């Protein structure tokens, strides 16, 4: 009996907790999704024999064949546009766009169709596709290789936008994204690809939810992607200085988990939002505005944000000045009208 057999396998796997990199967790999520659903196909540039420039699709073509993981001609609008067509016809395409600046040629397809086709057809056709995009900096990449474009996607109604900050979330959120009936922009923080953590493949994550990454009582840091480990580092340092810092991994950039975030900020009365992208008209400014409006009566101080500057991303040798760092976040925390302020 096939079903019983599958059930057993699931049970065995439920117990499996392994330490792996985020890259491996993503690879595992893709493989498991391909294996468990015949409608899942993975494609993009260099995802086949090469296994992707970051090796996230490593071994998939060898294991599952060209039908399930394949290279396309070099054209991002083509990749996303054909994925839309496949999704219209009942498949679950998972496409990789190589760097987030190279997702831009597909922007029309993403905004005008990926985001809107379900709405256009009154649900007659849904768009169960996932667009994976390595994003963010901190890897010494040259121009066009370090951008954080989440604002473009998060602003677009109809798109679910998520970013993991741990291998566990990388696995669980990617599985959830692939299983979702809605289109998901899946932003992978390049800087964290080789960071390690435990992964339990039986843990399911829910899209649209934030996660408390560390408890604390004095101030809440709201972060996502590569800014989460930074926030946790800040919390460590601040703890040594006697301040108890709560860290929320926003995780779902759209839709937003107001319940979790609002509860968190109300509990501390102070908040700083951290993100790498230029701050102007950004996910960080949205979070700042929401928290401000929803927690107004609870705030002891203005909500601050620490973000990238409103400039093009820095060249490799200058990126350490560009990126939010521990000091900059600590400085922001310092401005939050503490009782011990003079």
């Amino acid at each position, binding site marked *: 009996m096939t079903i019983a057999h599958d059930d057993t396998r699931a049970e065995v796997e439920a117990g499996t907790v392994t330490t792996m990199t985020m890259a491996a967790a993503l690879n595992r999520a893709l493989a498991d999704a391909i294996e468990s659903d015949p409608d899942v196909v993975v494609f993009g540039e260099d995802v086949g024999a090469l296994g992707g420039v970051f090796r996230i699709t490593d071994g998939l073509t060898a294991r599952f064949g060209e039908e399930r993981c394949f290279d396309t*001609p070099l054209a991002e*609008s083509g990749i996303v546009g054909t994925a839309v*067509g496949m999704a219209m016809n009942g498949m679950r395409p998972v496409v990789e766009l190589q760097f987030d600046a190279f997702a831009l040629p597909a922007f029309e397809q993403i905004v005008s169709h990926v985001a809107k086709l379900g709405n256009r057809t009154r649900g007659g056709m849904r768009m169960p596709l996932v667009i994976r995009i390595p994003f963010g900096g901190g890897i010494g990449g040259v121009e066009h290789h370090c951008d954080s474009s989440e604002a473009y996607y998060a602003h677009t109604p109809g798109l*679910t936008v998520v970013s993991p900050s741990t291998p566990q979330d990388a696995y669980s959120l990617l599985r959830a994204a692939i299983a979702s009936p*809605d289109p998901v922009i899946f932003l992978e923080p390049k800087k964290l690809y080789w960071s390690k953590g435990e992964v339990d493949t039986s843990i399911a994550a829910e899209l649209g939810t934030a996660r408390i990454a560390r408890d604390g009582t004095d101030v809440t840091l709201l972060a996502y992607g590569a800014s989460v480990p930074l926030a946790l580092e800040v919390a460590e340092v601040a703890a040594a200085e006697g301040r108890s810092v709560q860290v929320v991994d926003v995780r779902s950039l759209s839709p937003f988990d107001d319940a979790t975030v609002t509860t968190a900020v109300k509990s501390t009365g102070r908040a700083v939002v951290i993100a790498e992208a230029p701050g102007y008209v950004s996910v960080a400014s949205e979070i700042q505005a929401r928290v401000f409006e929803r927690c107004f009566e609870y705030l002891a101080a203005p909500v601050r944000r620490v973000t990238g500057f409103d400039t093009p991303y820095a060249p490799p040798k200058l990126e350490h000045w560009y990126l939010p760092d521990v000091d900059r976040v600590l400085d922001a925390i310092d401005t939050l009208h503490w009782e011990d302020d003079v």
Partner: protein
Amino acid sequence: MLHTDMLPRDTAVQLIDEDGQPVVDEHYALPDSETLLAAYRGLVEGRRINDQAGALVRQGRLAVYPSSHGQEACQVAAAMVLGDADWLFPTYRDSVAVIARGVEPADAMVLLKGDWHSGYDVRAHRVAPQATPLATQLLHAVGFAQAATHRGEDTVVLALCGDGATSEGDFHEAMNFAAVFQVPVVFFVQNNGFAISVPLSRQTAAPSLAHKAVGYGMPGERVDGNDVAAVLAVLGEAVNRARNGGGPSLIEAHTYRMQAHTNADDDTRYRERDEVQAWIARDPLLRLRTHLTQAGTLDADAEERFASGAEEIAAAMRTALNTDADLDPEDLFRFVTATRSPQLDEQWHLLRGEIERSHLADAGAGTTPNGDHR
């Protein structure tokens, strides 16, 4: 050796000339008379639908209508060459093709009426939503066909676009993906001479749009787009080739948009009346009627039947479009995603509150539901 076999013919395929006389073609045969009669009926209905929609625009019942008056042969053939399991990917101008494929005229007009962004059941009729952003639907057609192939289904996809759309990057990417993956898609370009006001000469310096096929390694062909027999033959062969694993083709139909781009357009600004007049002689209905009458296939009785059938369609359109649909504002939130997020829920509650208050105010003060405040 040159790949001369790759070059499209230098002239458009024609099987019935402007005077209704059959033309012998070395390669394509004239469709049988039953098919041609069905096509003629389609043309009559298509023309009537175009005219009726134009009238409904003037009466303010449709917000906008991009007419295919003059292009009905392409519209009708596009629907006729497809089997039940095949799919059509149309544009805003292809309402007649959409209706010819079985969609209720009223449903096909939902977009143009302004009620919703698309109004028919895409799966019931195997017709994708009419696309507005140019050339984008060509990629969807390719992916759709790839999925069908992946599942081993016998589906051919016919993707429509205009001459202007061939200049878009997405046209290129769609053609190329289709050719590289040998996908069962037929690209059908209705070259009606204009992209709104811009003439073909501003879209390409190539001898024809069909010549673009060469650069993708797929067959290209030109056809007289006002000769439904030729369009049926050429499109039909391309559909068969696709179905039999022969991969994609590019077919360019030479036709003409007899009316302005839409009712909002003023074509006197960019083309001479003489040019428009000249195309009347090439009308797709006229020549087929002459041909079928001379061949004895079409008699007054059939003419009469077709006309009254078309009149019924037009009457149904009038009835449907003269009724205001009962629109539900919650629809704005219902279909954005499969499950509605708390974020959207909150916004719907805001709007619902407003609507309730406006109804209360209505009941109380007799003001209009919107426009007047409080």
